């Protein structure tokens, strides 16, 4: 090898260094190009460019359609007119030019005069100030001089103003003259714009979206740092925070960089695919006029995901299915973001995002799945075992019936069979299955469970008060059936062996109380009679209200309910239990606090009953029965389940997936699987874990969508802190609404009433709409709080529609509950709960009101006395009695309602007599009717209060006066006894 040639004065070889330099420069260049290209070829740019092109094509089509639509002949005609008009103007060009010159000249003059006037005015103000200063000095000369200066200046100002006004007037005249000459042309041009304007606008937008040279230049690599068409679109959300690596930072949402059409209307047809679709319900979300504008809430606040991401794979998108996951992986290189705690909620759970701000508002407006889930959580009583620290789930009574006196109601053998498998008896029950689940199979375990169930029954009967009831009076099952279907029972109860909870989804009002099938095989008839007559006597905390049944009605209902029987649940005996197995369980519990030897001694000292009762107490503790039932001895025991208040933020590694490998490792999949198969995570561990350590969560027999509805809530129970000012439940009235809605669900008001357009479940058994319990829309505007207070306490006092069979039950509300209802209705209508009594009107108004009441034949529907429904009048067609109006209705409501009933209650039978005109005022038909011979008597009576017929007619033609007079008559004139 030849020695390297070195330049004498260098320590290194120049040639080789140049080579190194050349190669590394080239590498650097390539890397730079590569870097620029990578940056340039970001996927979001592709989306934007693609959408731009799609939109251009769409607009081009619209423009083409518009072109087809426009009448070309008409355009040609107008253009010809414009030309002739222009020709005509050309002839008068010199006149016009002169006018234009004069206008320009006058413009200058007006400007100058205006400047002069303003300047003089400011000088005048200065001199007035100088005058004040002179006054202070008290020097008479100075005062006189200053006063003179003010006067002189004022005179100048006056002259200036006169000049300005004169020039302004002249200018207006010249302008009018020009306009007059040009009028024909302007009109034609306006017509042309009206015809073509839409098309031109479209064409200009199509051109804007085209890809000309400017587009390529602006979006070229490097150049795109200036003013590109394709750019990251972001919004900074002040006051909404995101926790990134233990630091709380403002959210910065960039989602619309790819979801280009999300904030825009009109991209909701089938053909638009994500990310090019409009957000659904722009009236509610995202648009600037909605309650959740994009600029204030962004996207990730509700949906989750990484706010700053501009890359599909990194934004935290959650696939809906395994197929979608595979597709995403293939197409976008999607993979699960391990370090992102809040991935985007899958679409079916996106309503969970509402909870952060609407926590107190248990009926989130327009969120359906989540509302259903919230109702399910309340009905299933999840909060009994799992603390959920949201207002919707706190301070609620236990969801199941009290067991403190159950011995009076049924027998131990039935109770055993019930606990064993509740759904075998009531297919729709909310009571879950605790026993014979997948993780406690095998002969020994079955024997253990029998011992447990028997011991629970033993404990409950041991502690239960037993009252014996006399046999009920004889009743008729047929009459009972009619009563059951019409008096109101069906608002809360089913009596249907075929019923399936899922068929009723999402309206569970008729599952508020138990399904009454097989009642005859469950309860003692004497108890049933006493119970339906007065539920609170048996259990003061019960939600079951009293329907104020007579003895005969109650006896008929008992006869009907007891007629539903099932031999499989009658003449039962308690199964025999293996004493050894029971004793082994007792020992296990005893050993929790005692030594093995002590426990054996304790066991030996207990007799059979004591062992059963002891095991029963331990079993109730183990399964947490007291979470849903009042059980004697368990009044203050803490719930047994995991707290769920922040379950939606629990890190995924804290979920126990056991040995199950086919459930995706996401929060939603874990929770949903848990709902559907609560014991699944014990799979493969059954023999290793002690019997007492196995999962205990019971099986509620949920359908897929029930489980998903619950998941859509639990995912929303997060740590995410939303600043108070941004929370929906902090708005005025929100607490009143939230408390009211909670109470409405608790007492199942919607079983009978339509409230916020939901409810009236009872209509399945009462088919005639005229016989339904009322729609409570606008109730807060309609009735007086004082009246409603009395009525809710005792609905038996008087009835608006005494001819109806269905009855408003007596709930035995506390004052606090009633006030919650009053505040809720008032908040719904944005009104004060209380009003002052109005002053008495004069006799003239009362007489007119009475006459008009007769002429409009109000009494045809609103009876003023007892109704004989046998005389061809159908009860279903009658409207509430107005005799109660003064006690019941709000004074200001009556005439508002008469004027426009449909605006308060959709579908109401109350007709409009005073049609609203375009200007918002109301017309009156009465001046037209007053001359009919049949109303002569009314006319004569009214005329006594008027000087002339014309004056009466003027009064009658005024809808405001007439409706006020009707109100006064209804309010003052129809009072009972007057």
């Amino acid at each position, binding site marked *: 090898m030849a020695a390297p040639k070195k330049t004498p004065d260098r320590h290194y070889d120049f040639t080789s260094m140049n080579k190194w330099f050349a190669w590394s420069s080239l590498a650097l260049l390539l890397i730079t190009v590569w870097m620029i290209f990578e940056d340039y070829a970001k996927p979001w740019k592709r989306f934007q460019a693609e959408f731009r092109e799609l939109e251009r094509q769409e607009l081009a089509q*619209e*423009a083409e359609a*518009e072109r087809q*639509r426009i*009448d070309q002949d008409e355009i040609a005609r107008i253009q010809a007119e414009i030309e002739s008009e222009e020709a005509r103007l050309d002839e008068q060009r010199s006149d016009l030019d002169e006018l234009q010159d004069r206008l320009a000249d006058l413009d200058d003059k007006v400007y100058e005069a205006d400047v002069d006037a303003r300047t003089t005015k400011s000088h005048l103000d200065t001199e007035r100030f100088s005058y004040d200063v002179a006054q202070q000095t008290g020097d008479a000369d100075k005062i006189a001089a200053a006063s003179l200066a003010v006067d002189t200046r004022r005179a100048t100002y006056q002259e200036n103003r006169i000049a300005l006004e004169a020039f302004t007037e002249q200018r207006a005249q010249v302008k009018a003259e020009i306009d007059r000459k040009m009028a024909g042309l302007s009109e034609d041009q306006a017509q042309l714009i009206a015809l073509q*304007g*839409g*098309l031109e*606008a*479209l064409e*200009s*937008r199509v051109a*804007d*979206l085209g890809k*000309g040279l*400017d587009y390529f*230049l*602006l979006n070229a690599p490097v*150049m795109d740092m*200036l*003013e*590109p*068409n394709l750019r990251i679109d972001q919004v900074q959300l002040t006051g909404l925070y995101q926790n990134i690596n233990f630091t709380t930072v403002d959210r910065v949402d960039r989602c619309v960089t790819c979801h280009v059409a999300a904030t825009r209307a009109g991209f909701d047809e089938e053909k638009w695919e994500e990310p090019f679709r409009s957000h659904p319900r722009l009236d509610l979300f995202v648009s600037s006029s909605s309650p959740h504008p994009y600029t204030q809430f962004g996207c990730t606040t509700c949906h989750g995901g990484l706010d700053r991401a501009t890359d599909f794979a990194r934004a935290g998108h959650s696939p809906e299915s395994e197929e979608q996951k595979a597709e995403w992986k293939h197409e976008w290189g999607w993979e699960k973001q391990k370090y992102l705690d809040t991935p985007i909620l899958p679409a079916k759970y996106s309503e969970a995002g509402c909870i952060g701000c609407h926590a107190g508002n248990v009926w989130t407006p327009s969120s359906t799945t989540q509302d259903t889930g919230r109702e399910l959580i309340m009905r299933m009583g999840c909060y009994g075992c799992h603390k959920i620290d949201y207002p919707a789930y706190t301070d609620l009574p236990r969801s199941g019936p009290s067991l403190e006196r159950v011995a009076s109601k049924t027998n131990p053998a039935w109770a055993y069979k019930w606990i064993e498998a509740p759904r075998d008896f009531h297919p729709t029950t909310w009571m879950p299955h605790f026993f014979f689940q997948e993780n406690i199979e095998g002969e020994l375990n079955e024997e253990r469970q029998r011992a447990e169930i028997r011991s629970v029954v033993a404990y409950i009967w041991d502690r239960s008060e037993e009252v014996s009831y006399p046999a009920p009076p004889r009743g008729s099952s047929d009459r009972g059936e009619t009563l059951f279907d019409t008096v109101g029972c069906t608002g809360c109860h089913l009596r249907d062996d075929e019923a399936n909870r899922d068929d009723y989804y999402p309206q569970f009002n008729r599952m508020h109380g138990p399904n009454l099938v097989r009642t005859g095989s469950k309860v003692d008839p004497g108890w049933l009679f006493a119970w339906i007559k007065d539920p609170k006597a048996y259990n003061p905390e019960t939600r079951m209200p009293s329907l104020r049944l007579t003895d005969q009605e109650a006896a008929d209902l008992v006869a009907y309910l007891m007629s539903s029987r099932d031999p499989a649940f009658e003449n039962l005996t308690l199964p025999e239990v293996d004493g050894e197995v029971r004793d082994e369980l007792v020992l296990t519990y005893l050993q929790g606090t005692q030594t093995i030897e002590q426990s054996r001694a304790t066991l030996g000292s207990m007799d059979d009953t004591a062992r059963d009762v002891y095991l029963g107490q331990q079993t109730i503790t183990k399964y947490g029965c007291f979470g849903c039932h009042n059980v004697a001895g368990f009044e203050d025991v803490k719930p047994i389940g995991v707290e769920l208040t922040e379950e939606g933020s629990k890190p995924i590694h804290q979920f126990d997936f056991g040995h199950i490998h086919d459930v995706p490792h996401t929060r939603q999949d874990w929770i949903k699987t848990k709902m559907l198969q609560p014991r699944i995570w014990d799979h493969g561990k059954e023999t290793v874990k002690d019997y007492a350590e196995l999962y205990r969560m019971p099986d509620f027999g949920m359908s897929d969508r029930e489980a998903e509805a619950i998941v859509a809530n639990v995912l929303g129970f997060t740590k995410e802190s939303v600043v108070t000012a941004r929370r929906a439940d902090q708005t005025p009235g929100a607490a009143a609404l939230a408390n009211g809605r909670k109470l409405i669900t608790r007492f199942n008001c919607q079983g009978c009433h339509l409230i916020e357009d939901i409810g009236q479940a009872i209509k399945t058994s009462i088919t005639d709409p005229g016989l339904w319990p009322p729609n409570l829309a606008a109730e807060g505007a309609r009735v007086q709080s004082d009246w409603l207070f009395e009525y809710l306490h005792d609905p038996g006092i008087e009835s608006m529609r005494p001819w109806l069979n269905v009855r408003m039950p007596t709930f035995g509300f506390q004052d606090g509950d009633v006030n919650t209802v009053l505040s809720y209705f008032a908040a719904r209508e944005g009104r004060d709960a209380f009003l002052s009594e109005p002053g008495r009107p004069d006799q003239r108004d009362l007489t007119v009101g009475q006459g008009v009441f007769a*002429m*409009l*034949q109000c009494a*045809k*529907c609103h009876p003023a006395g007892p109704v004989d429904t046998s*005389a*061809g*009048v*159908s009860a*279903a*067609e009658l409207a509430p009695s107005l005799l109660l109006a003064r006690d019941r209705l709000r004074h200001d409501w009556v005439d508002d309602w008469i004027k426009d*009933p*449909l605006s308060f209650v*959709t*579908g*109401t*039978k*109350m*007709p*409009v*007599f005073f*049609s609203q005109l375009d200007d918002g005022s109301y017309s009156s*038909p009465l001046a*037209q*009717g007053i001359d*009919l011979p*049949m109303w002569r008597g009314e006319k004569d009576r009214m005329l006594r209060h008027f000087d002339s017929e014309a004056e009466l007619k003027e009064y009658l033609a005024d809808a405001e006066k007439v409706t006020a007079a009707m109100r006064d008559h209804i309010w003052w004139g129809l009072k009972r006894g007057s």
Partner: protein
Amino acid sequence: MNKYRFLTFCLLAVSLLGIACGGGGDEAAAPTAAAAPAAATGSGAITGVINYANGDPDTAIGMDADPVCVGLHAEGAVTEQVVGDEGRLGNVFVYIKSGLSGSFPASADKVVLDQQGCMYNPHVSGVQVGQPVVIRNSDPTLHNVHALPTANAEFNKGQPFQNMEFEHKFDTAEVMVRFKCDVHPWMNSYMGVVSHPFFAVSGTDGSYSIENVPAGTYTVEAWHETLGTQTMEVTVADDAAAAASFDFASAG
């Protein structure tokens, strides 16, 4: 140095261009909607007969609830659901359901819906979108006209006096809009609101005729209050009447 100056110039030029050309994309006005040019009517027709097998007769109406109504019917009144001669069915609304193109200006002729003898007259009728409907009360008693549409706006107007009337126009096609009177629960009427003039109601002899139909192939639907709907493909030629008869049978 010159190179840098050139580059700066370029950037400046491009940015100016960008400012000049950028923007302006979003605020352009949406195109104004307007009716398409009126399509011409034709010279064809669709005619037919509505047959009715094993028909149930109409039943009597008890009007006891309002003595005025009783007084207006010396011989009693019957429901008008299945009016028709033997084997024929009246009060069937027949119209072109689909196959038409273009739009048809609404007729200015007024369609009258009268309340006469505590019955709606006619019991079944048709109207074009935008065509005026005059609703009249010819009885000396209170009626209320409660329209229960699903696509159009609901209305419910009381007419307490004899010979009162008001005019209404429907905005949207809807077959059928039901009218009821809440004071007299037996009163019912049905109005087919369609976007063209090609509809008819069968007479008591079961026959109907839709005139001035442009040549083409259409889906024709026949609607009856209790017996449901039937459809048929019909091809219409110029200057000829295409036949489209329907057979209804009662469920019993």
